[in-house]
C-alpha cells in the first residue's frame, strides 16, 4: 500500500470514528424518542432500534394520558409552558444582548470608546464560567425581585452573552472601512442614520451569525435557569431534567422526545439564515 493510500485510510478511520462519537448521542436521542417505556432500559438487553415504535412519548409531553402497554406513568405533564418560557427568555436575551452589544461594538470599533481597556474588561466576563458567580447573582436577583421571573432570565442571558456579541460584532465592524460611514455623513446622514443606512446592512450576515450563536447558548442553558428560576418560570431544559415518574424513574423516552423538539428551533434558524452563514462575510466595498 502506498503512503498516500495509507494516509487516506487513516484519515477515513479518524473521521469515521469522530463522526460516530459525535453523532451517536443524536442517534440515541432520536431512536429513544420513539421507544415505548418497555424498551427504555430493559435489563440485559439493548434495543439499537425501536422494536415497537410509538409517538406516545410526544403525546405524554403535551398532557395526553399514557395508554396501552405504557400505563406505567400516572401524573400527566405538559411541556408547552416550559417551551414558551424558553422561547421568550432565549429570544429576549438574544435581542437584548444584540442591541446593547452591537452598539458597544460599534462604539469600540469606530470611536475607540473605552480605550484599550474596555474590550478586554468586557472579555474578562467570559474568563470564568458564569456559574462561578451564580450564587451572588442569586442574592442580587432576589433583592431586585427578578428571581424566578422571565425578565430576570432575559437580563442574565443578555449579560452572559454580551461579551460574545461585542467581540464578534466588533470584528465585523472593523472590517468595514471608516469611509463608508463618513461618506453617508458627508451626504447628510446623522451619525445614527449613517449607522443604520450604510453600516448595518453591511454587517447583516455577521449580525445573523451572532444572533444564532447567542440564541443557541441561551436556548441550551440549564444551570442558570435552574438556579435563578425553576418554580414559576421553568425553561424547557429544566423541565426536561425533571421528567421522572414513580413507576419508571427516569423517563428516558419522554425526555428524548422533548430533546428532539428542542433541537428544532436552532436547526430551523440555521437553515433560515444559512445564506448568511455559508456566505460568511463578503465585504465588497473596498477593492484592496
Amino acid at each position: 500500500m502506498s503512503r498516500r493510500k495509507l494516509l487516506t485510510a487513516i484519515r477515513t478511520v479518524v473521521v469515521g470514528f469522530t463522526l460516530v462519537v459525535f453523532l451517536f448521542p443524536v442517534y440515541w436521542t432520536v431512536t429513544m424518542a420513539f421507544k415505548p417505556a418497555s424498551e427504555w432500559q430493559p435489563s440485559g438487553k439493548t434495543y439499537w432500534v425501536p422494536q415497537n415504535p410509538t409517538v406516545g412519548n410526544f403525546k405524554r409531553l403535551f398532557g395526553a394520558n399514557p395508554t396501552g402497554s405504557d400505563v406505567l406513568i400516572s401524573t400527566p405533564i405538559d411541556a408547552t409552558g416550559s417551551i414558551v418560557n424558553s422561547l421568550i427568555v432565549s429570544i429576549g436575551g438574544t435581542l437584548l444582548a444584540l442591541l446593547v452589544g452591537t452598539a458597544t461594538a460599534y462604539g469600540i470599533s469606530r470611536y475607540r470608546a473605552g480605550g484599550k481597556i474596555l474590550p478586554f474588561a468586557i472579555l474578562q466576563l467570559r474568563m470564568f464560567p458564569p456559574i462561578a458567580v451564580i450564587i451572588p447573582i442569586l442574592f442580587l436577583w432576589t433583592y431586585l425581585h427578578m428571581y424566578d421571573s422571565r425578565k430576570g432570565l432575559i437580563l442574565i442571558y443578555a449579560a452572559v452573552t454580551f461579551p460574545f456579541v461585542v467581540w464578534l460584532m466588533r470584528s465585523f465592524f472593523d472590517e468595514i472601512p471608516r469611509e463608508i460611514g463618513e461618506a453617508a455623513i458627508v451626504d447628510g446622514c446623522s451619525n445614527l442614520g449613517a449607522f443604520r443606512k450604510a453600516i448595518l446592512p453591511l454587517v447583516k450576515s455577521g449580525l445573523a451569525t451572532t444572533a444564532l450563536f447567542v440564541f443557541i447558548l441561551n436556548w441550551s442553558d440549564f444551570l442558570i435557569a435552574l438556579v435563578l428560576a425553576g418554580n414559576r418560570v421553568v425553561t424547557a431544559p429544566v423541565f426536561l431534567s425533571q421528567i421522572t415518574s414513580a413507576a419508571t424513574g427516569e423517563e428516558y423516552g419522554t425526555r428524548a422526545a422533548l430533546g428532539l423538539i428542542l433541537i428544532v428551533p436552532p436547526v430551523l434558524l440555521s437553515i433560515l439564515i444559512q445564506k448568511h452563514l455559508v456566505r460568511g462575510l463578503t465585504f465588497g466595498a473596498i477593492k484592496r
Partner: protein
Amino acid sequence: MARIEIERVTKRFGKLDAVIDLDLEIEHGTFTALLGPSGCGKTTTMNMLSGLLAPTAGEIRFDGRRVNEDEPGRRNVGFVFQNYAIFTHMSAFDNIALGLRIKKLSKAEVAAEVQRVARMLEIEDLLERRAAGLSVNDMQKVAIGRSMITNPDIFLLDEPFSNLDAAFRAYMRAELKRLQRELGQTMVYVTHDQIEAMSMAERIAIMNEGRLQQYGSPDEVYNRPANRFVAQFVGSTVMNFLPVEIERWGDSLGLRIPIDDAAPIVLAGESGAVRAMGGNGGGGPFTLGIRPEHIRVVGAEAAGDLRGTVTLVEPLGARNVVHLRAGERGFRIVVPPTTRPRIGDDVGVELDRSRIHVFDDATGLALR
C-alpha cells in the same frame, strides 16, 4: 460657488500635530491640489474641510462664513474617498440617489437628477446594477456621481484615482478636468502623486509634516521651489543635490562643487541666488539643486562644469536618464533618446545657469 479660506488651522491628535498653522486661500472655481507624502496632513486638512474632523485651532471659512461648527451634511460639499466608499448593498442608482433622498426630494426629481449625473459620467446603463458587482473603475465613477448629485459648492477628492489602473487613471484625469470645467465648482484634490497634481491642478499646495511648504501654480512649484523639500518632491526625475561652496566674484557668485576637477560655476548678478546672498559671500553650508533635465552633455573637447562616469542608463523612450558618478557624488541627467552613452563612458556636462537653485542647508530654504 465657494471660496475657501483656511486661517491658522491646527489639528492635533493627542501628541501628534497632523496639521500645523495652515494658511490657505482657495479661490472660487479653481482646481487645487494638496500634494505631499503620506502623513503630511493633506487628508486631515481635507477631513476638516468636509467637517468630518474639527480643527483644534484656527478657522475655516466658506465664502467668508465660518464653518468650523457646521455638520458635514450642511456644508454642501461633495466628497470622493480614496476607496470610493460605495455602499455595496445598494444599486448604483441608490448610491447616487442617497444624498437627494436624505434631502427628501420627490421620487421623480430624484430619478431625473440621477439620470442627469449618470449621463455626465456615462454610466446610465450601470444604474440598476448592484454596486458590489461593479468594476473598480465603475465604482469610482459611481462615487463621483454620488458626490455630484447634490450640486455641492465644493468638491473634495481624496486620492480618488490611486486604486485605478494606469490607463483608466489617465482617462479619469482628463474626465475630471472636463467635469470641473463644466461644473465650474471649486475642487480640492488630495494626492501624493506629483504628476497628477501637476497635470490637473491650477494651484498646488505642497505639504510636509503638517506644514505648508509652498502654494503656487504648477509652473511656480516646478521652476521656483521655495525649499529643498518642494524641489525634491516635484519633478518626475528627482532633482540633483550637490554640496557647494560659494565665493564672491565681483558682481557674481562663484559656485564651487567640491569634486576633484570641477570648474567653478559663475552665476551672474541678476540671478536670484546672487541677490539673496546680497553682499556677503559666506554663510552656508549650501546645497546646489539642479533638475536632471537642465543638465546638458558637452562635446568631447569641452571641459564642461563637471565630468562624470556613466554608471547606469535608463532608456525611457522619449528620453534617456543617465546616472553619473563624479568622485563621491552621484547625479542624474536627462538626455535626448539619440544620446545613449555606454556604462563607463567619461562624460562632461554643463549646468543650465538659469535653472540652478541654491538652498541654505540650515533652513532648507531656497536663496532667491
